[in-house]
Structures are given as C-alpha cells and as structure tokens.
C-alpha cells in the first residue's frame, strides 16, 4: 500500500486525488495547499488529512509518494523537496518552467534514488494509445505529415496563473506540450521547430499558436493550440503516411449527447452536452501505472527525460515565436 501525499488542491489535484480512490495499492493520506480551505475540502472528500505546510505533511502523514499538482513554476521546489525526503514523485506536466528546472529535478531524484514520473496523461488516453498502436502496426505505412489540434476557451486557475505568461508559458508550454510528448513518443526526437503565436501580444485571455516541427526521421508535424475557441474543447489528429491516413476528431467520436429541453432561468436555450464516457479514467490509468512502478521498483513508461524533452520543444517554439526564426533542438 503506497501512501500518497497530494500537493495542490486545485484543478489537477481534484482530478488526481479521486483517481487514487479506485486503487487497492494506494491511498491519499495527505492533501497540502497554501489555501487552507481548498486543502480541507479535497482532504475531506478523500478521507485524508489537510495541510498548509509541506514539511509538516511529510512528517505527520508519512507518505511514500508525493504527487505534485501545483502551478508549473513550483514543480521544481516540491519535486526536489520530496526527493530529498526520499519520496517517489509524480508531477503534472509541463515538468518544469525551464530546462534548468528540469535538469535540477532529474539530478535530485536520481541522487535520491527515487522514482520520478512527469504526468503526460495523453499516453494513457485510449484513443492516443490506440492511434500509436495503429501507426506501429503499419496501418498508414511510413508517416510523412501529422497534424494535431488541441484547445478551447481560456482556462481559469488560481490567481489567474494561466494568464500569467511568466508562470504558465502560455498554451505552448501548458497545453500543446501534450501533443509534443505524444509526437515524440511516436516519431522520436525533433530536429527543429518553427512557430507563430499570440503569447507575446498581450491580448488578455486569448492565446493561439501554430507550430511546425521537423523530426529527425523526416516527419513534419503541424500542431495547433488554441485558448481562443468558443466552440468547445477540440482535439484532432491526422497522420498521413505513404500507405494510408489516420483521422481523429473528438467532435466526431461522440457516443453520447445529452440535451435538456428544460431550460434554467437566464439561459437562452437548451445546451447539448456531448460526452465520451470510458470505463477507465485515463488519469487513473496513468497514476496506477506510476504506483505499480513504485511497488515493483520499475522505471515508468514516461521518463523524466521525456518530460524534459517535451519542455524543450515548447521552449524552442516560444523562442521561435520571439525570434521569427526556426530553432534547432539540442542546438
């Protein structure tokens, strides 16, 4: 039984926390947040203790594992403190705000000999795992050009941290890093990145980027990220190879729509809400994998190096947006 301490009771903490509830070999024993009420609310729901101090949580809750769900710039601090205390660590993506942050986290967790996984949950989404399997099985031959789309409206978080570029890195670091990691998982390392985006334009709660990646194996990928689309959260993937095409859209793959004719006061019309229910929550699958690795002393499928290399692509895209030039990866 792995005792889990959750750091951050915000949006992602509320997703990770309940995922452990379904596991037989893990239990959330502590929830820490600098906001006492938030910590308490989530802790109560999870039948755990609430804390506002990290060291106090480690001492009193005696966790085996720390799950870091705080905003990006604070990942490093909690990952390193957890590692130094000998705790295994899983941290939300992006792994760090800078490459130096990532390197320090990798060093600290290696030195401490703890298991460390960046939570790139897309690999545990069945549609993304299944598309990878199809590509590997040769369904489309050798991939040549790949297109992804991800986004919706602007996210709301603690202290509007998504809207603070210095903290979040905008959608290029926070959102489409999902796709960068999935693309790397499929096609290996990137060679260069060219990108255009709105993050430097100070448009308030509006961000958008178009990123072109050339991979070392020749694949060209086009990644769209949007926090400016009011049509609802959209995810699309297209993989064109020399023997076929994979085409996915979450707007098409909709098994269920619930639309209510009884309209609440103040709403103009009934809203149709599409759903895509799954027997197994991808976050559960991701965290179960991590806990299993901890129990067996195995290296997780998503390595710290993967987490850092995804950040590297994001930062290269941001550099390209700033300079107007293509940016070599690892250059």
């Amino acid at each position, binding site marked *: 039984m792995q005792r889990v301490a959750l750091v951050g009771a915000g949006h992602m903490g509320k997703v990770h926390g309940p995922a452990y509830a379904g596991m037989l070999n893990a239990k959330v024993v502590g929830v820490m947040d600098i906001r006492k009420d938030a910590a308490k609310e989530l802790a109560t729901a999870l039948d755990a203790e609430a804390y506002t101090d990290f060291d106090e949580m480690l001492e009193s809750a005696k966790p085996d594992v720390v799950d870091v769900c705080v905003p990006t710039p604070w990942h490093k601090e909690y990952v390193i403190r957890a590692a130094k205390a000998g705790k295994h660590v899983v941290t939300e993506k992006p792994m760090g705000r800078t490459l130096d942050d990532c390197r320090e986290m990798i060093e600290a967790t290696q030195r401490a000999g703890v298991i460390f996984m960046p939570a790139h949950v897309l690999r545990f989404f069945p549609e993304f795992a299944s598309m990878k399997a199809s590509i590997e099985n040769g369904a489309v031959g050798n991939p040549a*050009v790949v297109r992804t789309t991800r986004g919706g409206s602007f996210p709301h978080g603690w202290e509007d941290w998504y809207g603070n570029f210095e903290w979040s890195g905008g959608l290029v670091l926070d959102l489409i890093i999902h796709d960068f990691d999935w693309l790397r998982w499929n096609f290996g390392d990137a060679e260069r990145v060219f990108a255009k985006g709105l993050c430097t334009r100070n448009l308030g709660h509006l961000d958008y980027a178009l990123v072109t990646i050339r991979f070392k194996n*020749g694949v*060209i990928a086009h990644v769209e990220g*949007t926090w400016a689309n*009011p049509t609802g959260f959209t995810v699309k993937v297209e993989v064109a190879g*020399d023997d076929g095409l994979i085409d996915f859209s979450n707007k098409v793959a909709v098994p269920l729509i619930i639309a209510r004719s009884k309209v609440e006061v103040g709403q103009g019309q009934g809203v149709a809400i599409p759903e895509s229910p799954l027997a197994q929550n991808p976050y559960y699958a991701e965290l179960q994998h991590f806990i299993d690795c901890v129990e067996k002393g195995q290296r997780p499928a998503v390595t710290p190096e993967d987490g850092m290399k995804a950040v590297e692509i994001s930062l290269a895209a941001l550099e390209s947006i700033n300079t107007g030039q293509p940016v070599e990866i690892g250059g």
Partner: protein
Amino acid sequence: MAVKIGIMSFAHMHACSYASAAVRNPNIILAGVADDDKERGQKMADMFETTYYPSYEALLAGDIEAVVVTPENAKHKELTLMAAEAGKHVMCEKPLAPNLADGREMIEVCRAKGVKLMTAFPCRFSPAMRRVKEAVDGGAIGEILAIKGTNQGKMPGGWFIELEKSGGGAVIDHTVHVVDLMRWLMKSEPKEVYAEISNLMHHQDYDDVGVLTITFDNGVFTTLDSSWSRPKSFPFWGNVTMEITGTEGVILMDMFAQTFTVYSDKNMQTTWNFWGSDIDYLLVNDFAMAVANNLPVSITGEDGLKAVEVALGAYESARSGVPIKLPLE
C-alpha cells in the same frame, strides 16, 4: 448575346469541369476546343458537342471572344501569349505560371494587347467562402489574428509530377488557392514564408508534403498544409479549409463538407458525394460576364502571380532553412 469561348488544351483535368460549366450556361457558347493531344481534344469535342480544331492557331482564327487556357503549367505562357496576340481574352488555370518571369510576361502582353487576363481561382466563388468574407467584413469575429488553412488532396499523377511540365509538386499545386483566399479575405499581402517540405508520401523527385507558415502585412500569421496527403482509398478528392481565429471568436470553414456518404459493395469503396454549389460554374460565368460587359475581371493575373510567389518562396525557404521575405527579389 452569348459569349463565344474556346478551350485550349485539356491537359489539366479542370478543363472538363470548365467545359461542362460552359455548355450548361445559357450565356456561353463553347465554340470550339484545340489540344496538342489530338485524340484527347477530339474526344472532348465529341463529349461537349463542339468543334475540334486541329491547331490552337485554327481555334484562335475563329470568332471566339475568349479562351480558357488549361494546359500543363509550363505551357501557360505560350498559349496565353498566342491568345493575347489573337486578341482573345484569357482565363488561365492556376498556378498562373511555374515561375515569376513567365507570369510577368503573360500579364504584360495581355495588357499590351488589351485583352483581359483572369486567374482561375474558383474557391473565391464558394458560397461558404462568400459568407466567411461577409462575416469577417461585418466584424463578426472582431479583428483576425491567425488563420489555419489546408488544401490537402490526392497525388494527381500524370504531368503534375513531371517537374519540367509542372514547375513543382504539391506545394505549387496546392498553395495558390488558399493563399489567394487569404489575400482576398484580408486585403493584405504576404510578407514572409517559411516552409517544411518533403517527399515522404511517395518518395520520388517531386514534393508531396508541404507545411507553410505565411505572415501578412497586417501582422496576421497563417499556416497552410498543401500536401498530397490523401491516400488512394480516401472517400473524396481532398479539401479546402480555413479556420480563422479573431479577437471576438472563430470561423471554421470546410468548403467541401456538403456531402453525403455512400458505402458501396459494388467496388468495396466508401465515397463522399458532394452536393454543394458548383464553383467552377460560377467562375466560368464570372469570366464570361466580364467579357460580355467589358468589365475588369474579378481575379487578375497579378492575383495569380502573387499566389505563385508564395509557393516559390516556400521552395526557397525549404532549400535554405530560413523564412523568406516577400515579394521575392
């Protein structure tokens, strides 16, 4: 009075569609066709119940007022100049020319001879695209910030992949339509292009994958996928899409989405049958009306050449690895 037109060459498959549009249009008489492939020309003349002329000169010697020029890209100049010399107005297939010099000469000679030169960009006539323009002009999504475009298709084969006849592969074939729509929509000119280009779909000497990033004078950035990336088994020829992000909303256009799906056991094939408006008909009609009423054409040779320039810049960018300033030197 109906406008008498001729068609010079059926090398480009769009010629068939234009011929069909002409014969269905009560304001147009398809007076004759000529083709350097005699067999093809005769077959088309029979199909569209018009006269086959054994030479372009013979066709141009007649009383037609205008021609549709639809040979291989490399022959656009030769046939356009012949028509202009004969005093016939020209609608030339896209891309206007495989290089800037050809295009400039076509524009200059047509001007000197006092004939109209129109570039065949039918997508401007799409009712969905018209609606996009109307919505943008009316401020529906505020100010445009970015556009993501695609013109993906199947590898057409034939002379399209013989570089000396086409001037390039997918990028020159599929860049020009959407670049023209972007210019038209924003009334702004491309100022820089970056491109990643490859041949990994078919592994031959022509390009079949192109992902372009084009910035415009007004500060808007765009990307355009001009790849021949639809497999042979794809249920439709391809697409033209534009997704526009504005300060106050988005517009998502999929120009050829008006289809129904047919699953047929006859050939074990799934197909999408398009039932939207015939934009080739609208294009040919627009050209004929400009001729009939002696009005300026709505899409000029300069428009055609501006779009070609982006494709040429994209090739230059892929060769050099850096963004290329437009217009080209």
